[in-house]
Every structure is written in C-alpha cells, then in structure tokens.
C-alpha cells in the first residue's frame, strides 16, 4: 500500500460542502506519478518506494538516471522522491499511482518549498512591530531596535532575530483534510493552504497522528 504521493499545486479556491458551508481548498494535481523503484531490506537496508513525478523529455534526463529508468522499464520522470513504506508488497515497479489512494476525510501531511522573499527585514521576517510613525521618532521606522547589552556580555546573543534571507525553505503543514478526490482527473482537494507558489512541487503523506474530532 502506498502511503504518499507527489503532486503539483494548481491553486486555491472555495467549495461548498454538504452542510452548505463554504470552505477554502487547495487544488493539487497528482497526474503522472509512477513507481520508479523499490528499496528493500536485503539490498538497501530499509524499505521504501521511489515515486517519480512530472514528465520530461528523454534528452533532458541525466545519463546515470536514464540508465536506472531503463533498467526498471519505467518512463522518465523529472522528480524522484522516496517514501518509507513497511508494507510495500503489493506495489509494483512501473505502476502508476493516482489520487485514488486517498479518501475524503483523511488527513495528510503536506511538504513543499515556501515562496522565497529574498533579503527581508525584521517586520516581515519575524513579525516585529516596528517603531512609532510619529511622536518624535525619526529616520527609524522598521528597525529591530537594540541588538543586545553593553560591555557585558560584549557580544550579540546567539539566535538574535535580525534581517536576512526569508522563505524558499522546506515546510510541512500537518493534518490537512482531504475534501474531495477526483480520480479521473487526478485531482485532490485539500482543506486549507499548502506551502509554495502555484505550480510548485508538493509531497503528500498520510498522517500518522490524525487530528482528533
């Protein structure tokens, strides 16, 4: 049994659910997901399923990778990711994995790469409040204030929140509920927001600790 999938974030919208309420959803496309390889206890020391996602021209595939695709007789894929899987007996190499492995109501952990924000100040990056806009304050409005004490300790404490690069990091959102599965179109509707821009890669895993209630 597969316990995860790779997908592409298509965007967000809203749907009306049975009780008539309107909820926000992210639309995820999971087409072209293929089992490219399997890791076994005997050969690799751990059990996992390797999934490939996203079509790619043959010419663009690295030679070493092309060889591995050829060996397993699977179509070339742009992205490869492994999913730890203890009960992978029924998973065949070359089999396509579609959105049908998830059911509505199930909870997923979704991993993606957040939008990069470049070099950001402390207000955007750490949620500082900034300085007052009036009452004698001048020149400094979005600064972070003092960075530490004087002669003792004579240095800036570790972990001090300062401006710097923000975003473009891996982020996992836990317990997002599956609202709808459209198997034919390979679409997944998940309640709430997922990390990253539209068109970004998402790793969907069944959650081990589902939210109660």
């Amino acid at each position: 049994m597969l316990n995860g999938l790779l997908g592409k974030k298509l965007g967000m919208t809203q749907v009306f659910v049975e009780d008539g309420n309107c909820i926000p959803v992210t639309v995820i496309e999971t087409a072209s997901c293929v089992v490219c390889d399997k890791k076994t206890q005997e050969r690799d020391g751990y059990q996992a399923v390797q999934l490939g996602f996203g079509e790619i021209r043959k010419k663009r595939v690295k030679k070493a990778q092309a060889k591995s695709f050829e060996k397993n007789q699977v179509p070339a894929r742009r992205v490869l990711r492994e999913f730890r899987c203890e009960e992978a007996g029924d998973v065949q190499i070359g089999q396509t994995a579609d959105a049908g492995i998830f059911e509505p109501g199930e909870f997923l952990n979704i991993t993606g790469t957040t939008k990069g924000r470049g070099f950001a100040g402390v207000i955007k990056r750490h949620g500082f409040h900034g300085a007052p806009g009036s009452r004698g304050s001048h020149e400094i409005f979005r600064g972070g204030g003092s960075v530490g004490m004087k002669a003792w300790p004579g240095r800036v404490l570790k972990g001090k929140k300062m401006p710097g690069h923000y975003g473009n990091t891996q982020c996992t959102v836990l317990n997002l509920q599956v609202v709808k599965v459209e198997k034919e179109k390979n679409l997944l509707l998940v309640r709430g927001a997922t990390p990253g821009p539209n068109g970004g890669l998402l790793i969907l895993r069944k959650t081990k600790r589902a939210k109660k209630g």
Partner: protein
Amino acid sequence: MNAVDEIERTQMKKKVPSFCVGDTVKVHMTIKEGDKERVQVFEGVVIARKHGGVRETFTVRKISFGVGVERVFPIHSPKVGKIEVARHGRVRRAKLYYLRDLKGKASKTKEKSRQQIQKTRQEAVAGAPEKAAASS
C-alpha cells in the same frame, strides 16, 4: 480551461435570479436549528454586489426595530434559496453605502419606472450571450 476554474464552475448555480443594486429583495435562507431545518426570509435593499464567479456576494440592508442590519450572502451558496425582487429601485451608484448615513424617508430608493425596468432587462439579455461566449 484550467482545473481550478473547472472546479469553480461546478460549484456555481446554473441560474442566478436577476436583481440589481437598489432593488428590495426577499432572500430565502435555510437555517439549521439542531436537527430541524427551516427557511428564514430576510428582506431589505441590496446595497452592493461584490466579486465574481463562485465568490460573488451581495449585501442586503434593512432597518430592524430602528437598528440598521446588514447581511452578506454568497450568491452561489446552497443555503441561499429563492431571491425575490419585491421592488425595483432606481439608483445611480454601484454601491449604496451612503444609505448607512441616511435615516427615514431619505434612505428610501425611488422605484424604477416600467420603461427603466424593461431597459435593464433588455440589457441583461443582450449581455448574457456575450458573457457566455466570453467564458466558454
């Protein structure tokens, strides 16, 4: 057409009753109380229509026991049933937020004449096929 638009289209009602800003409408809303469901009617003046597609909403304002009450309804919500137009109002703005500052007679919208109603209807009919062509 992209997948997100397609999903939005399936969420939309096939037929939305035609009404304009300034009209007095009766909105039939299903309300759940425990296990029971009943229909509540909210009557007032439409003071705004906002957003587009599946997100479209309209704001209805009424004076209840001397207090102004406004309610925002999503047009495509399954909870919003019938929308009856009780009176066609003649207004010259798309948003009637100025009604909030008015009291009594000044806050009434004038009724549209028959010719005006017919004109807006014709415009709606003429606009509809264009809209359909543009969206398909």
